[in-house]
């Protein structure tokens, strides 16, 4: 692995690579490095503390207290006993599975395919076309989905009718929702990730690819043995992000709830439930409890990606 990496930046100063660094230089440079390291991250760290760390700690605080008084796990118990909690867990779990699979499989596949296109304009047009839906978000998409999912007016009505649906209400029945949301989320989210993975593929030295081709590797073998391993960090990152996005499912159900005027319930996902707790029931502690549960689950699942993808290693 490290061999190939040094090849990618070869040409800069091959001789310098082999010269062992002097001990004196080493300690001076590391001290200087450390100082500048802090300088470089200072701005971000400030924002991280203000808008990330402190709010997270506050949420933790809220989750274990009620109106300022410590109540242990009461909030969690109350939330788990809510009749809306188990269905919401199921909904989110199903959605995360579908979402993760579709993203990991299709995005990587499409990125590989787009990258393999030799014709320059076709490549950029494809990337643009795949990305366009990602530009539409939230309120803008409400009316779009109101129409696209309604078999009587949809541009894809032929498809919906073929699947046996005759009305909007049937399309958005509770059983179909995980798939519907996956489709919506994929439609809006895939394009951006394809661009990122495409960029990651571009970072792979074409000389390696050429070498593989000369050695007789077909497209699939090249992808499997060369491209994918070099994209590990990027794919892991995508995995983690899609876990986060999946567990935090909020926008799509909210959009559909508005579009169908309530037929899709507004407590479909756990994140929505957290919202309702905070802003409808005035129960910020319960809301924080749900959020902490979501965080814990996402953390545990991401650990898989972090360690298998060696995300924290700097080299």
């Amino acid at each position, binding site marked *: 692995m490290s061999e190939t990496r040094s090849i990618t930046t070869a040409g800069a100063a091959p001789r310098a690579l082999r010269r062992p660094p002097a001990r004196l230089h080493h300690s001076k440079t590391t001290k200087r490095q450390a100082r500048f390291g802090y300088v470089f991250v200072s701005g971000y760290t400030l924002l991280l503390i203000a808008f990330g760390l402190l709010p*997270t700690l506050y949420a933790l605080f809220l989750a274990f207290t009620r109106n300022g008084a410590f109540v242990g796990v009461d909030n969690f118990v109350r939330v788990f006993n809510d009749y809306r909690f188990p269905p919401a867990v199921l909904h989110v779990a199903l959605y995360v599975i579908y979402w993760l699979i579709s993203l990991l499989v299709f995005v990587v596949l499409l990125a590989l395919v787009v990258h393999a296109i030799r014709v320059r304009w076709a490549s950029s047009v494809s990337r643009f076309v795949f990305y*366009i839906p990602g530009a539409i978000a939230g309120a803008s998409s409400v009316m779009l989905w109101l129409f696209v999912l309604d078999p009587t007016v949809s541009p894809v009505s032929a498809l919906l009718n073929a699947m046996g649906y005759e009305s909007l209400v049937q399309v958005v029945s509770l059983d179909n929702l995980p798939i519907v949301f996956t489709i919506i989320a994929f439609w809006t989210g895939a394009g951006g990730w394809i661009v990122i993975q495409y*960029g990651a593929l571009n970072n792979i030295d074409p000389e390696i690819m050429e070498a593989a081709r000369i050695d007789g590797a077909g497209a699939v073998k090249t992808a499997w043995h060369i491209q994918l391993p070099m994209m590990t960090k990027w794919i892991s990152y995508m995995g983690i992000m899609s876990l986060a996005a999946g567990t935090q499912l909020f926008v799509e159900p909210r959009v559909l709830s508005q579009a169908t005027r309530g037929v899709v319930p507004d407590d479909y996902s756990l994140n929505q439930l957290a919202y309702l707790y905070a802003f409808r029931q005035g129960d910020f502690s319960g809301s924080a409890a749900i959020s902490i549960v979501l965080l814990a689950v996402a953390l545990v699942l991401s650990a898989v990606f972090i360690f298998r993808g060696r995300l*924290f290693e700097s080299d």
Partner: protein
Amino acid sequence: MTDRSQTRRRSTTPRQWVSKILITALLVGFAVFFVLPIVWLLIAPSKDGRQLLLDSPFSFGSFEQIGANWNALFSFQDGVFTTWLGNSTLYSFGALALTLLVSIPAGYALALVEFRGRKLLLMTTLIVMLIPNTALVLPIFLELSALRLIGTPLSVILPFSFFPFGVYLTYIYFSTAVSRDLLNAARMDGAGELRVFAQVAMPLATPVIALVGFFNFVGNWNNYFLPFLMVGGQKVPVQVGLANMLANVPQFNPTTATSTVIELPTLALATLLSVAPVLIIFLFSQRFLVEGMTAGGTKG
């Protein structure tokens, strides 16, 4: 040698054809998937409310109708749509500048500079990215309220500039695309840290700057919840404005007696106009992405 390659080319041709067809089919299939609803959306403003419901989805209405919908959109609340677009521009570009200023150096340092607390920062960033936004909203509101910033553009720009996703992207990019040895070489040649960053790392960073900038801009442009809570009235960005507009569409809100009625095609036009800047920026930054890639990825 020539003989072998000739035979190879001949024997792989049929297979190449099949794979070419498959690939094209795949691309076209997905292209249709992504584009079909957009085409519908593009055509929608040319119809009026009833035509949208009754005519075929891909039938074109009329140009006059586009004009009528345009007028309806811009006369809504005396042209507040323009104000919304202006607000979105201010917030998104303001946050973009701050984000790049803050995130690129941070990602670089996390990837290529030795300092204590590196892993701690990475870990914290990850955790913060995984916690649902709902939980963070109240504390952020309280902080900004204590600083008397609620209702001002800063209350939107500052949180928008916190972009852990971008920092991570930069970190991954720098740790995979740029070698430490390259930097160490420059250091040993006597370059100070700032010079190493500015003259060695930055030129290689164009793709990731374009990427981070783009995603930050789009995320902020499309963000509804944060500006919804922080500002109101004339200061809202276009996403919040669209949601307010939605409240005046009878299909979505029949029970409120409204004298201001917005029809669906007008809403479609508003959607397209609010999306256009994002697409333009995408096209613009795509150039840098591709250019930068070929410049930085291949060497020697």
